[in-house]
């Protein structure tokens, strides 16, 4: 490109420095103590990369400054305003925004290069097409995921007859048009067609995915945006995009696999299974006449106060009710009474990987009280009371012993092995996956029917009055 060779070398070197800061940012995430520092190092690296880029021989600085000012304000305001309970939406949105940026870059670069005399090098046009396709899927898919999480549209899967053939047709159209560009005319209209088809596919493929599967989808979309950025790096011959995109792609892929494993389901099953439709009459055999035992805050308060060990098991309902501060307050009160209080967290509780950890950290629960599923399960048999707050499928014993259950084989938190279980829940209605939960009908289970926030405020008052 333009500029003297020296400055080009310097540019590449400084980009390398930025790359190292990104790797350090991820490396420092291995412990909560250094994680924040790592993130700041990464942010500094990003600023360096932008400054270095701007220092090249460019034009339109006025417009670039305006674009960065607009984007910066959107980013800061959005990031400052969002509540911790809304973090999954926020991540989905930023993901989509990044994917959209990649698609636009591919489009602009193609428009810029394609009309030139002679054909584009194959690797260039391939890179542009790949980044356009994956970026568009990521953009549209993330926006649908955002809309679902923000409850702009229903969280339940949206299914219709012939859905799979339609999806297959749409993606085949995108790939067909892409192939046409590679072998035939390098037409911008063809690329616009590719992008349109990819955007449509992004919408269609997330629509049928249920709320409970969101951790998988968000991780996957994260990986997609990373790969799209990498592909854009090939198109622009910029290593910094290739490496950064690859890091993100690896992270998203790893999280996708982890989430799939935590649900004991393959990724294809999550993506194409339309899981979470209301399952009537399938799965768990509901015996007639079984009744769930209802209880009152006062009874639960006594139970908790005289327990030696209490474990709270949170789920998405905690985020919905925004009850994390009340749960923490109750936990502290019980600790003052000498109760051993812990929190058991399932890997897919909530709507994104690690969702519950962030909520409880926000409420000031020390992170050494947060236990992963594998750590907490052996403790269950020595636990007096487990309080399930807004979790359902992740504590469903049907996953362990009912071979007809749709979630059979999914690792769960074995709350039913504790002496007593209290389930805080608004009604007996099934969870997001739409599966009946035999836990509610166990001898040792009592149900506290209330909104989680209200329930915990009452519990707090009752325990104080004891």
């Amino acid at each position, binding site marked *: 490109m333009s500029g003297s060779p020296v400055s080009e070398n310097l540019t590449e070197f400084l980009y390398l420095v930025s790359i190292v800061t990104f790797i350090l940012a991820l490396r420092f995430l291995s412990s909560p103590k250094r*994680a924040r520092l790592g*993130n700041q190092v990464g942010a500094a690296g990003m600023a360096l990369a932008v400054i270095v880029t701007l220092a090249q021989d460019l034009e339109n600085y006025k417009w670039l400054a305006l674009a960065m000012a607009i984007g910066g304000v959107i980013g800061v305001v959005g990031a400052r305003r969002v509540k911790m309970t809304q973090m999954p939406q926020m991540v989905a949105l930023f993901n989509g925004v990044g994917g959209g940026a990649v698609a636009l870059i591919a489009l602009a670069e193609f428009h810029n290069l394609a009309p030139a005399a002679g054909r584009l090098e194959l690797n260039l046009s391939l890179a542009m097409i790949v980044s356009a396709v994956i970026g568009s899927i990521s953009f549209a898919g993330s926006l649908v995921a955002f809309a679902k999480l923000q409850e702009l549209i229903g969280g339940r899967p949206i299914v219709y007859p012939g859905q799979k053939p339609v999806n297959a047709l749409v993606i085949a159209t995108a790939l067909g048009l892409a192939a046409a560009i590679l072998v035939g005319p390098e037409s911008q209209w063809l690329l616009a067609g590719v992008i349109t088809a990819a955007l449509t596919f992004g919408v269609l493929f997330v629509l049928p995915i249920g709320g409970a599967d969101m951790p998988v989808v968000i991780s996957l979309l994260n990986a997609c945006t990373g790969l799209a950025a990498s592909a854009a790096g090939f198109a622009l011959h910029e290593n910094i995009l290739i490496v950064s995109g690859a890091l993100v792609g690896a992270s998203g892929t790893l999280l996708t696999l982890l989430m799939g494993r935590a649900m004991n389901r393959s990724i294809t099953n999550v993506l194409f299974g339309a899981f979470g439709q209301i399952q009537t009459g399938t799965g768990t055999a509901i015996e007639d006449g079984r009744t769930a035992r209802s209880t009152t805050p006062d009874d639960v308060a006594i139970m908790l106060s005289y327990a030696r060990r209490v474990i709270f098991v949170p789920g998405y309902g905690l985020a919905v009710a925004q009850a994390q501060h009340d749960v923490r307050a109750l936990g502290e009160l019980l600790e003052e009474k000498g109760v051993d209080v812990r929190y058991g967290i399932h890997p897919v509780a909530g709507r994104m990987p690690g969702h519950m950890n962030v909520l409880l950290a926000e409420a000031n629960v020390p992170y050494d009280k947060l236990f992963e599923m594998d750590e907490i399960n052996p403790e269950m048999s020595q636990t007096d009371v487990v309080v399930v707050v807004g979790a359902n499928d992740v504590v469903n014993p049907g996953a362990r012993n009912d071979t007809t259950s749709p979630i059979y084989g999914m690792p769960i938190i074995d709350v039913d092995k504790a002496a007593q279980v209290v389930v805080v829940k608004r009604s007996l209605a099934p969870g997001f996956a739409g599966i009946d939960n035999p836990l509610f009908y166990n001898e040792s289970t009592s149900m506290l029917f209330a909104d989680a926030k209200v329930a915990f405020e009452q519990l707090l008052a009752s325990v104080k009055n004891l």
Partner: protein
Amino acid sequence: MSHSSFLLELTILVLAIFLGFEVISKVPTLLHTPLMSGTNAIHGIVIVGGILVAGRPDSDSLTQIVGFFAVVLGTANAVGGFVVTDRMLELFKRKPSVREPSVREPD
């Protein structure tokens, strides 16, 4: 330029993917949400691509307009991602034994 640079870039890609898996497999479950938003911020690096496309002297007006929007999105992505991750990690910075000030562990 063409063939060898492509292979070089491919090499970099593959090595970076392996590095990514190595580094990220050490991130505890506790920090998976900050990991997601942090990697989100990192793919904001596409802002560099946006700037190059929008600002190159040889680009025509359509390229510049499309590039303009790419820069807006890329900046929002990078800035928002880092800010929100910082907010989140601040929550995790508190000492585990914050309620028993006498038992502070050395840092």
